[in-house]
């Protein structure tokens, strides 16, 4: 059933891609093929392949339980937070925080995860800053101008 659902989603995506390609405007002096044809081919092949998935689905993949999905969601939020915090908050604090949470999610032990996070943060900072010479800031720049 999972395969069928994803097949339908892919078929819809292929249709959307096709529709979006029809909206492209070819300039007056275009080559014989133009900018539309190759995207057309791609969407047609994807559409046909999605049909095979809908008609002959594979076995259902083993989906994790709901709580695992929740922790995957948390992991995504943590990573997005990390992406945004790297510049304003400096390297050390966000890295220690994110690495600790991710480590805890793989192996749920508070103290070990915290130690892992902090040592990864400091260790990687030393490698990046002093061995590889990247322009990282340890702490927010408003602390040290």
């Amino acid at each position: 059933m999972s395969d069928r659902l994803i097949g339908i989603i892919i078929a819809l995506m292929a249709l959307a891609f096709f529709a979006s390609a029809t909206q492209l405007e070819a300039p007056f002096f275009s080559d014989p093929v133009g900018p539309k044809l190759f995207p057309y081919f791609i969407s047609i092949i994807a559409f046909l392949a999605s049909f095979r998935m809908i008609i002959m689905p594979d076995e259902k993949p083993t989906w994790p339980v709901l709580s695992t999905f929740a922790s995957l969601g948390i992991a995504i939020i943590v990573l997005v937070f990390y992406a945004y915090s790297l510049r304003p908050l400096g390297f050390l604090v966000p890295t220690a925080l994110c690495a600790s949470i991710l480590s805890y999610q793989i192996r749920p032990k508070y103290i070990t995860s915290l130690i892992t996070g902090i040592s990864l943060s400091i260790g990687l900072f030393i490698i990046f800053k002093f061995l590889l010479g990247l322009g990282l800031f340890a702490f927010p720049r408003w602390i040290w101008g």
Partner: protein
Amino acid sequence: MDLGLIMELFANLSLGFSIALTTTTLMLAVIGCILGTMIGALPGLGPTNGVAILIPISFTLGLDATQALVLMTSVYYGAMYGGRISSILLNIPGDEPAVMTTLDGYPMAKNGRAGDALVLSGFASFVGAFLATIGLMLLAPMLAQVAFMFGPAEYFALYLLAFCTLGGLGSNNQAKAAISVCLGLGIAMIGVDSSTGMTRFTGGNLHLFDGIDFLVAIVGLFAITEIFVFIESHGKETAIGVKLEKISIPIKEIVYTRWTVLRGSCIGFVAGLLPGAGASIGSFLAYMSEKAIVKDNSSFGKGDPRGVAAPEAGNNAAAGGALIPMLTLGIPGSGTTAVLLALLMTLNITPGPLLFTERPEVVWGLIATLLIANVMLLILNVPLVKFFTKILQVPASILLPGVTMISFVGIYSLTGSHFDLLLMIGFGVLGYFLRKFSIPSVPVILGILLGGHMEVSLRRAMVLSDGDWTYLLSSPISIGLWVAAILGFVAPIFLKSILKKPTPNQ
């Protein structure tokens, strides 16, 4: 081969060694070999994602093209060696090509012969990689000559062949492989169309006008996906490890498996040459054919030394072979060579026949380094193998967060954009779902990398022929490539029962 060609070969080789034997290059090769063996040995990090996370970092080091290539190919060769260590000791393949090594390597280790298995497989790896590098040296310049005859129609057919064989051989479900290719090609269409200068599929988002950086996609799909997979499984790959007692050199076994190693190397090399096949297929075919050829195969799967030597020779030979289509035609033969191609493209080096005439120092420096790196790897992997077995004890709860942080810093220092980091997370999520639905992710990468070139070659062919479609099939070379492409995609459907992979022992 006449005398002139041999003289030319030696002239090229001495050029290569003059580059490879500088202190910096040698140092980079040593670092690459050590890092590569570690990356290969660690379960959860393979050659593809290992090389992927190191690429952004190698840029920030400010290495020139040859040096960056030397570092990355040493990592690549090293990872092929390292993959066997956890296969043999933990029954967990360190990377995909090493899956076949678990079949006989782990039983051999359980019988108390872990050291012998490691040395034997290290030696087989050396022979396989050495022969493949010699093959690369001899064959690549010849193929580069042939490639001069390729026009846009031939290149279009060649790209098609790469996608078809990769889809046909790499997946059990051709439809899923096709979807994966289309996904990659579709992503490649985003951004400015090089022929007309107009933007396509950007949705008006300024960040997307330059298209999606393939390094962002690669690191997302290969490194970030891994953290999600490990969070789901809680890293519970705690197989009972086998103790490594002492290391001696099993000369008797090395002599006993000499023909096995040679056969495995040849098969692996040919598998590596095929666009889209790569090292996993190389080790698989080497093992299966060895099992079919030998008279008494009853001990296969129970710790037969031939079952350890064949796949290791095969996968290392395939790794060398896969460099040939990548360097001469710009068509990668595997996931990792696709990542190496991404490296070349970012360095502004266009692989292809012109590379051999215009940048001989890059090609021959690389070949000379591979020869040197291979000797280093033999030293690292036979007498010093004990050091690398220690690395297996690094738990996933430290390794994976570390890999994730390195990926973020690498991509951020390369592009300096938050948008790319978000895109990378997006690709990580995509990779997780692709894996759940067993849709292969390597074709996505290949599609992103080659999509633009494939479209351009089609459009150029049509400009040349003034819109006549029969031009695509107008030369014997392109007809041959089209036939091979269709066969490569369709044949595995019928050969499924023969090519069925044996299940690893529990």
